[in-house]
């Protein structure tokens, strides 16, 4: 008797969890669906409640965005900035991690932990002095300004991630390559880098995501020629009355590419995040 009551309770609990799960999926997907579908709706139709599931798609919001509001250029800028930042960060981060490994003690691990403290520094704290500095060096408005800055934000984590992966590589492998006459640079490019592939993949999606989506630094360090998409959107948001058609299209253009990349790099996105948290 006791047993059956217990299993009824268990089943009820399970059903409750599943219902919660379905609600959670809806809660996750509906906001994204609304924005993407609104970007193809006429502005008048957006005010119709409940929103019609079937409607005739229009592309005029995108036309306005791309041909009159320079979003094609913003898109290109976002791509240039995030791809360069990702490449730069991974190159520098893996080099630094190898340098730490060469220090031949636990000190390497400790330095990479100290670097992680960089995450404690709020962007706003460095933004203003950095802006003044970059202004004086005539760097604001160049691609270099956001690329350097965003790289700096990601480097502590990427170096730390790579250090963890390099620490897992058996020492015998490195030593035997050394005995066979491979130089230390050769060991880096021929042995370490190939073994780092999963870490590099995780770093690609994580850095790409954060640099594509960054707003605060880009607001001040870029100008009309180098604005990324996020700044383009932020300029709409500041307006008194928001043009939801254009905004939805801008939001869609900004989020869809990175969602697609993330979809194909699922595995590495998840492993990068869990490495960051579970390994701690």
């Amino acid at each position, binding site marked *: 008797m006791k047993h059956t009551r217990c299993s009824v309770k268990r089943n009820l609990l399970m059903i409750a969890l*599943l219902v919660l*799960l379905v609600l959670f*999926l809806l809660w*996750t*997907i509906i*906001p994204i669906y*609304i*924005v993407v579908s609104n970007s193809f709706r006429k502005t008048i139709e957006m005010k119709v*409640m409940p929103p019609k599931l079937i409607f005739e798609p229009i592309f005029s919001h995108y036309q306005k965005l791309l041909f009159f509001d320079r979003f094609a250029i913003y898109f290109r800028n976002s791509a240039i900035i995030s791809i360069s930042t990702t490449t730069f960060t991974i190159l520098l981060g893996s*080099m*630094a991690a190898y340098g*730490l490994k*060469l*220090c031949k*003690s636990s*000190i390497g691990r*400790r*330095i990479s932990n100290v670097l*992680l*403290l960089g*995450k*404690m*520094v*709020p*962007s*706003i*704290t*460095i*933004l*203003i*002095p950095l802006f003044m*500095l970059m*202004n004086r060096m005539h760097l604001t408005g160049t691609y270099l300004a956001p690329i*350097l800055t965003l*790289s*700096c934000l990601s*480097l502590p984590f990427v170096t730390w991630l790579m250090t963890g992966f390099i620490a897992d590589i058996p020492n015998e492998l490195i030593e035997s390559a050394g005995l066979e006459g491979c130089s230390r*640079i050769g060991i880096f490019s021929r042995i370490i880098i190939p073994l780092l592939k999963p870490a590099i993949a995780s770093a690609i999606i994580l850095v790409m995501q954060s640099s594509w*989506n*960054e*707003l605060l630094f880009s607001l001040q360090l870029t100008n009309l020629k180098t604005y990324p998409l*996020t700044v383009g*959107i*932020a300029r709409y*948001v*500041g307006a008194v009355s*928001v043009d*939801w058609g254009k*905004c939805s299209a801008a*939001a869609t253009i900004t989020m869809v590419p*990175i969602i697609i990349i*993330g979809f194909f790099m*699922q595995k590495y*996105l*998840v492993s990068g995040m*869990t490495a*960051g*948290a*579970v390994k*701690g």
Partner: protein
Amino acid sequence: MVKQKTFEWSLERGDLLPLLMMLPTLLVILFVMVFPLVYGLLLSFFTIGFGGSLSPDSFVGLDNYLQFFTDPVAMKATLNTVLFSFGAIAGDFVLGTFVSLGLLKLRRSASVLIRPIVTMPLLVSPVVVGLIWRYIYDPKGILYYFLGKIGLGISNFPGVTAASTSLLSTIIAHWWQVTPFVIIVLTAGLLSIPEEYYEASKIDGAGPFRTFFQITLPQLLNVYVVIMLVSGVDTIKIFDLIFALTGGGPNNSSISLSIYAYSQAFEQSNLSYSIAISILTMLLTFCIFGIPFIKHNLSKGNR
């Protein structure tokens, strides 16, 4: 101490390679983070505008910092930032725990199918998240349509239009974006709990609730701490989401420290004061999350 010794040792042998490999990273961090921090700290003791240079006349000592503690908006921003951080983390944890427990009950193939949907919000820019939720909270929008269906209206939950609920509205939007992170990490943590523990508690006749509180939760404690540190730091820095969703309004009711510092610098041109605010923001981050972070990493290093 140990640190210097190792470097000396490798430098003595004329071995510059480790240093050379690290040099580019250190230079970038020095140029973008360390130098601006020092420069900012210096500027915070002066009164200075954009393009101005430091002179003894403009030295004001701690005035900018003292102003912070007598400025009601700054106090409001501090309170909001702490409330936001607390509310965001608490919600993420509760919702994230339930959903990841639910995911665990599913078959592996099903949870792999669901994963792309779960991770989606994490990939969306916070400024877009703010925009999306601004649309949802629109008084003529979808949220109030559904609330109307169950007999509630804008007077029950005024959303971003009233000072009483604007901060809560930003927290809800943050839940939408960051809960998936908690789910992903917790799911990995849950899967790493040995199956025997659950079997043992089943044999002991423990119900699902007792199992959760006596086995799952203690096993995951470390994971929770790390999630709290990682996402906690981000919540204290919050800028983009609030910038796009409420802009800090109405009437500063949802203003955060980053938003306030930004508007002081780029709208009011109170550069030095803005830097003082942002340095205090950093100290706040450090006090709440930095010290536990260091303790956590030290205990890791000793193990």
